[in-house]
């Protein structure tokens, strides 16, 4: 409306930019190729696996001196150690309840019967009888798989992390919901927490909190708290204005406004935030096995390190089942929060609540007193069947599908990965750095270029430049695959409601799975290689990208598509000339998110043969003398992430500037 001047000037400059920008990019890439053929192999800054730079030595020293001062430095004595003590106490307490022998008993306070009964009862009371059955079945399965204690350890850590996350997250979210200033303050912090590849802050945390359950829980709550804050704030902010204004018009105080209008009206969204927090916590708790968190994750890692697909599969199934149970129960709870239970008679419900409560209490008592109800009966052969079955299938696949999988693997590796890796990693560092900065300036803006320059400097300084470029090549290939998948499947879903109905639940399920689990089938099919790491990243990132594209295509007004059809466009024309251009924002967002998700799998990829930065991080956790190098590699991943994110954002902003510049 009031933007005639802005729009005018941008339409005037656009044609010129359209001619010069792509040309400049192509020219830059051509120059780079020429320079690469001439200078290939020089100044690559390669660092052999066992070699350390001064920085890495210094980090090792820092680690040692921190370790030495842990019991003398006041910051540790009165702050970090206190936090660790509280966390440890919380974890030990919950573990003592359900997972580990405690309080002078040979078994946990609550045995399997009590846990199953209480979980089912809570699922029924907050959700419905269907999820209660699911919960009972799922938890019994853990026992049958022979993974009862591991499952309970994972559950205990998850519960503690969720408890602490919500304890701080919901009040902070409410504050961010009602205060604009606090919202502005916390949004960049949350952005950073969520942009940062999740597995990366494991390393710095161990520096401060040592490895073990306390660090694992803290890492988990760092990962799980942002959704709680964000979704709570979002829920409060998206409460429709009319009821709130009406509340004000009756002279409500701020407190009344919050308790009588904002909170009740955002209750469902807040419960959804609890759901997201729980899922994030579970995902992270399994990954935190890297820093010695007890539970199912540890079983998976140990099995993967020995390529024991069967055992990994068995534990993976337990993780998936736990994810499904927790997700369904909290989803049912959020539906009940919104609609009520729909019972005809509240009195009958009260009676049932009391009755089942009594049953659960009796079961708990039995499991406290009798060994048969405490330790899951031996002889559950299910776990062995599962792991043998998985091993059989893997062996079969390796024998019979080898041609197919090898073809795919070699195709991607030879056609995409090797050339790109050669190009990125074998360019002299100064050439590569210059190309990155110039590209950032060309497709983004000067600010992105400045950030890129700083990031390049940090990567060189980390002593891991070459590894960073190898990782970058893998990330780019994986992102390319993710975006391709996103566009193909996303457009299909956006255009066909039937496709959407079938595929969306699969994607939703995929997103609730802890990232870890993906590795198991990937390793089974492609064994340990760089390609496996790429596939793991793609599988992890694709659902997000696909959904974003599908939603973008879906959001295009029907009348626009109708107009294109009326003008005689065929399907291909409609897609390429109307739907994709109009969904451009979603495509850009999908690319950006795809990048971030892929990058956050880098460390995990390090477990299955990704090498480069991921390997360094994993090695840093396990070998003391590599600690500093691992820490530097973790930082390098973060730096890569920030660099890619800023360039992608600047590019998105730039292509979006003309239509939205006036919205100030």
């Amino acid at each position, binding site marked *: 409306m*009031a933007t005639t001047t802005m729009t005018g000037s941008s339409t005037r400059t656009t044609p010129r930019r359209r001619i010069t920008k792509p040309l400049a990019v192509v020219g830059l890439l051509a120059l780079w190729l020429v320079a690469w053929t001439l200078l290939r192999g020089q100044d690559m800054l390669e660092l052999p696996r066992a070699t350390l730079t001064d920085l890495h030595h210094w980090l090792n020293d820092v680690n040692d001196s921190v370790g030495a001062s842990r019991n003398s430095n006041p910051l540790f004595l009165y702050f970090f150690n206190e936090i660790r003590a509280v966390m440890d106490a919380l974890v030990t307490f919950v573990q003592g309840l359900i997972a580990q022998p405690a309080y002078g008993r040979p078994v946990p306070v609550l045995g399997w019967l009590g846990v199953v009964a209480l979980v089912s009862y809570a699922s029924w009371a907050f959700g419905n009888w269907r999820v209660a059955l699911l919960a009972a079945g799922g938890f019994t399965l853990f026992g049958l798989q022979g993974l009862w204690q591991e499952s309970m350890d994972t559950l205990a850590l998850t519960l503690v992390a969720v408890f602490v996350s919500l304890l701080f997250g919901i009040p902070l979210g409410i504050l961010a919901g009602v205060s604009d200033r606090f919202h502005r303050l916390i949004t960049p912090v949350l952005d950073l927490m969520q942009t940062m590849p999740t597995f990366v802050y494991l390393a710095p945390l161990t520096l401060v909190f040592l490895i073990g359950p306390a660090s694992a829980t803290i890492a988990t709550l760092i990962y799980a708290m942002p959704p709680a804050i964000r979704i709570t704030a979002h829920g409060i902010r998206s409460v429709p204005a009319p009821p709130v204004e009406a509340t004000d018009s*009756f*002279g409500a105080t701020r407190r009344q406004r919050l308790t009588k209008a904002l909170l009740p009206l955002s209750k469902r969204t807040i419960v959804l935030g609890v759901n997201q927090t729980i899922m994030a916590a579970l995902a992270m708790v399994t990954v935190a096995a890297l820093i010695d968190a007890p539970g199912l994750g540890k079983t998976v890692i140990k099995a993967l390190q020995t390529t024991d697909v069967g055992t990994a599969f068995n534990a993976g199934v337990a993780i998936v089942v736990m994810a499904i149970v927790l997700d369904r129960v909290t989803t049912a709870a959020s539906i009940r929060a919104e609609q009520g239970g729909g019972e005809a008679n509240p009195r009958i419900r009260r009676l049932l609540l009391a009755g089942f409560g009594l049953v659960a209490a009796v079961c708990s008592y039995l499991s406290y007193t009798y060994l048969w109800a405490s330790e899951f009966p031996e002889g559950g052969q299910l776990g062995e069947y599962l792991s043998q079955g998985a091993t059989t299938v893997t062996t079969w696949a390796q024998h019979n599908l080898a041609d197919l999988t090898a073809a795919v693997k070699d195709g991607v590796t030879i056609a995409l990965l090797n050339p790109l890796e050669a190009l990125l990693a074998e360019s002299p560092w100064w050439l590569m750095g210059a190309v990155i900065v110039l590209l950032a300036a060309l497709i983004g803006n000067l600010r992105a270029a400045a950030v890129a320059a700083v990031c390049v400097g940090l990567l060189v300084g980390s002593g891991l430049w070459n590894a960073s470029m190898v990782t970058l090549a893998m990330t780019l290939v994986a992102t390319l695959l993710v975006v391709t998948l996103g566009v193909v499947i996303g457009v299909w879903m956006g255009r066909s409601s039937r496709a959407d109905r079938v595929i969306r639940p699969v994607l939703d399920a995929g997103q609730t799975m802890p990232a870890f689990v993906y590795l198991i089938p990937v390793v089974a099919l492609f064994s340990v290689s760089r390609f496996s790491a790429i596939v793991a990243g793609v599988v992890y990132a694709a659902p997000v990208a696909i959904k974003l594209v599908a939603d973008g295509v879906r959001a295009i007004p029907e009348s626009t598509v109708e107009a294109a059809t009326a003008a005689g466009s065929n399907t291909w024309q409609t897609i390429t000339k109307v739907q994709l251009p109009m969904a451009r924002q979603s495509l850009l967002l999908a690319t950006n998110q795809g990048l971030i998700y892929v990058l956050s799998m880098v460390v995990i990829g390090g477990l299955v043969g990704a090498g480069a930065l991921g390997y360094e991080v994993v090695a840093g956790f396990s070998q003391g003398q590599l600690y500093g190098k691992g820490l530097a590699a973790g930082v390098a991943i973060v730096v890569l992430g920030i660099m890619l994110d800023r360039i992608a954002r600047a590019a998105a902003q730039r292509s979006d500037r003309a239509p939205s510049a006036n919205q100030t």
Partner: protein
Amino acid sequence: MSTDTAVQPRGQVNDHQTPVISVRNLWKVFGPNAERVPGSAELAALSRRELRERARCTAAVREVSFDVAPGEVFVVMGLSGSGKSTLVRCLTRLIEPTAGEVVFEGEDILRADKKRLRELRRRKFSMVFQHFGLLPYRTVVDNVGYGLEIRGAGRAERIRRANEVIELVGLDGYENAYPDQLSGGMQQRVGLARALAGDPDVLFFDEPFSALDPLIRRDMQNEVIRLHRQVGKTMVFITHDLSEALKLGDRILLMRDGNVVQAGTGDELVGAPADDYVRDFVQDVPRADVLTLRWIMRPARDSDQLDGPELGPGVIVRDAVRTVLAADRPVRVVENGELLGVVGHAEVLDIVAGNQAGA
């Protein structure tokens, strides 16, 4: 609530009464440094568009003044963007005005501190909203008792009073329904009941029926007229619908671009539009339904036979048509025994047939 104001004939407001609300030079400017605009003669003189270009400010309400008499239905009318909804929110400071004064029962509301303002909102004003603003998770009774709850009333009292007003607006039987189980019209009845429950002195209506179907809208308008007769509250009513304004309003304030264009009774707006904008606005109004004999009478001529039927000047033309046409001589328009003029067949037919005469 005073019943004597309620039975006062519509359209005749006693000018000598102390106004309930008295608005003087009220400004609401949105944008950076908004407060400098009303004070600066130069900026204040700019048109809306110029102001936006010069100062990046939008003046939603510009120097508006008016009085609302006790017991009257005062309508603020204008098209969307004219500033009417902002104006009504300024009156209770749901939007903070930039400058001016709003005197309510002798007290300048703009000077009230937070506590006093809350008290006023709790006891003296209440508002009915375009999108109802009901709380979906509360039953009708709890929605109606909401204002009382905010005010701190006990549950028993809330339910007693809520049931009273629910009956008043004709919702009995729906006490325990949830808003999403009701039609739009019924939801707005809940909004109406909620506003009435606190027994306020003034009711503000912000386009309450714009979101409703035409038939339901008519029902609700009649409902407001009935309630006004029954409870005699002062009402400030915002609408963009001229026929609604004419139907409900004792007096009408017409706004455009934040300015007052004209203020007066409905027949004044139709009979004597202040400018072309108003004339344009009211041109499709069925004039016979709005104008009174005062607007169409002519001075008696010598040739007139002055022994015809007698009517008051406030009689609406449509109600007089039958009498005028049935008489074989002009109808005399008489007020307090004094002959003001006469109305013959020609004058009535002009209006009924839609001619422009009589303005």
